[in-house]
């Protein structure tokens, strides 16, 4: 398998997970099955549900998560690697270019606040500003895009971790958010190497969470919250235990780990789903999205890691042309540019 195939696999896997997961967002698994899947779990692109603020968008439309990842890759390709400025350029491009309105409309609160800070928008003082911690924004908004740092650092986990902090800290200056970002970047970095096993990938995720947290503690805003590292271990235990039982796997994962917007839920659960699916791209994505809650984000992270691990050759062919067309994104072109940088 070529490096290009892994880069493309990660991008397509990420886009599938994000686009398929988007309509399932906010619901628990039982409602996804009952309401959205008409008695079955969802294994394809479906219409946005009636209560979504975004209606009548084409099937296969990705959400903010993939859009910011894609634009970050475009900027990193231009810059020849991960730089802080390129990461910031991508944030502004997505926010301000009308062309991307369908994605920026779904920007999460943590990103919105982080970007406003970069823009120098002054906010009225709130009591939270005085605290030595910020427990409000320990979300996956950093981890959902940090996978691209793994593509740019194949086999170099330490650099992937450093780059993920460089990329994400401008808008997500929070130790737990950055621990999640480093975890995903480290896992993708190792998944990019020939001969890596699934356990190598998962161990990289655990090490990335720990190292990312430790590094961020020196520079980022602190936060109190559950440990991503410890929760990954439990999530993987659940994934292995229920690898043969789709429903039991997602139920136990959501019941004990959670798949909510906080990085200490979504990131650990992704490793549990990867373990349950043996790293298979589509199965990892199906588990992640049907677990619900922040399903477009668990979907993108699971798809990115499994896609890098198994390569584009393992993903059904229909997805790449569909996702590229619907979202007007040159996924193949960007994958080629990135592969030239890391070659």
């Amino acid at each position, binding site marked *: 398998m070529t490096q290009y195939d892994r880069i493309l696999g990660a991008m397509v896997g990420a886009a599938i997970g994000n686009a398929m997961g988007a309509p399932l967002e906010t619901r628990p698994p039982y409602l996804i099955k009952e309401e959205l899947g008409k008695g079955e779990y969802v294994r394809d692109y479906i219409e946005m549900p009636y209560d979504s603020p975004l209606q009548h968008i084409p099937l296969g439309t990705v959400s903010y998560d993939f859009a910011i990842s894609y634009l970050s890759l475009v900027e990193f390709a231009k810059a020849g690697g991960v730089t802080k400025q390129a990461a910031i350029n991508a944030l502004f491009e997505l926010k301000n270019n009308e062309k991307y309105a369908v994605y920026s409309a779904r920007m999460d609160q943590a990103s919105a606040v982080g970007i406003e800070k970069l823009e120098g928008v002054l906010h009225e003082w709130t009591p939270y500003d005085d605290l030595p911690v910020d427990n409000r924004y320990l979300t996956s908004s950093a981890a959902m895009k940090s996978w691209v740092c793994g593509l740019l650092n194949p086999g170099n986990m330490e650099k992937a971790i450093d780059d993920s902090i460089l990329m994400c800290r401008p808008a997500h200056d929070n130790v737990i958010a950055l621990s999640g970002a480093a975890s995903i970047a480290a896992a993708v970095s190792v998944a990019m190497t020939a001969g890596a096993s699934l356990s190598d990938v998962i161990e990289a995720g655990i090490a990335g969470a720990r190292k990312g947290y430790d590094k961020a503690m020196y520079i980022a805003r602190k936060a109190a919250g559950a440990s991503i590292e410890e929760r990954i271990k439990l999530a993987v235990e659940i994934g292995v235990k229920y690898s043969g039982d789709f429903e039991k796997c997602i139920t136990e994962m959501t019941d*004990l780990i959670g798949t909510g917007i906080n990085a200490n839920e979504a990131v650990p659960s992704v490793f549990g789903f990867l373990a349950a699916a043996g790293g298979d791209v589509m199965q990892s994505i199906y588990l992640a999205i049907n677990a619900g809650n922040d399903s477009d984000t668990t979907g993108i992270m699971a798809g990115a890691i499994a896609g890098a691990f198994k390569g584009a050759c393992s993903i059904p062919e229909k997805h790449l042309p569909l996702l590229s067309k619907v979202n007007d994104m040159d996924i193949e072109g960007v994958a080629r540019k990135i592969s030239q940088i890391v070659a």
Partner: protein
Amino acid sequence: MITRKERIFGGLLGASIGDSMGAATEFMTRDQIREWFGGRVTTYVDLPDHMFLKGAVKGMVTDDFSIGYYTAVAMLEKKQKMNDAVAIEGLLNWNSDPLYSQCAGPTTRITIARLRGEEVPEKQERLCMNQRVTNGGGMKAGIVGLFNPGDVDGAVADALTMCRTTHDNTLALSAGCAIAAAAAKAFEDGVSYLELIEAGIYGAEKGFARAAELGAKPAAGCSIAKKIALAAEIGLRHQDDFEGAMRRIGDIIGCGLYAYESIPAVFGFIAACKGHALDTIYMAVNGGDDTDTVACMAGYIVGAFNGAGAYPEAHLNLINSANGYDLAKMAADIDAMI
């Protein structure tokens, strides 16, 4: 034998001790708490300047215990068991006190604004509002446990009524019922701390099912019942290892704003400390994140379990004088009413 009145008194006292001790450590990480205070916090300390509650004195409770207190006052004044009207009256009276309204949580704020007839702009209601699966139901539901001594099902029913006013989703309600059920169970003579945990699991399951039947909104999040069981398992495994239990429960279960973190954490701490009246509270106070809420909830349960006699008199004097309370009288009034 510990009398019913002593247990009610203990519940009130435990909850207020937990809330006021935790007020100083709230939000911070475990390490930050240790650094800030130069060790574990096991008494009443001055609030750091960064805290929301400006001008607070040692022993002063926060939004957590005060909401239960105001609700109890409304019930006692009206001689009315829990119903919608007293729940709302307690809530509005509580919120009229500027001391506590400044620290009201996100979910409670929205409800109060609506009850007062204010327009609350909301982008668009989704079927599941998962950001409202918070511990604001659990933090006040302990009080109904004290109004239902030994009657776990009665406590669950009252917790649903009380908490639906602000936290009308299946998971936040399940969490509230867990705390209320365990506090009610604590009144049974000869009950062990393990049965308190079982009552919590029972309350969480029953509360979830009843909430769904009553039409509470569905939500995505962890299972309160299953996470109580996991938290208790961790706590039991780390008995006599205070630091280890606190760390493992904080790392895996979490002690944050979400109902499925802080409510299960309460039971993990009870398991680790074998239901001890003060140790359980100390673990919650030093466990980081939403410490005052976790400690307040734990205090209702272990306070009723051990009775007021488990707390040195100095606690009562400080709590009463800092807050203008007479908790012994309130306990006697509740005992007389039920």
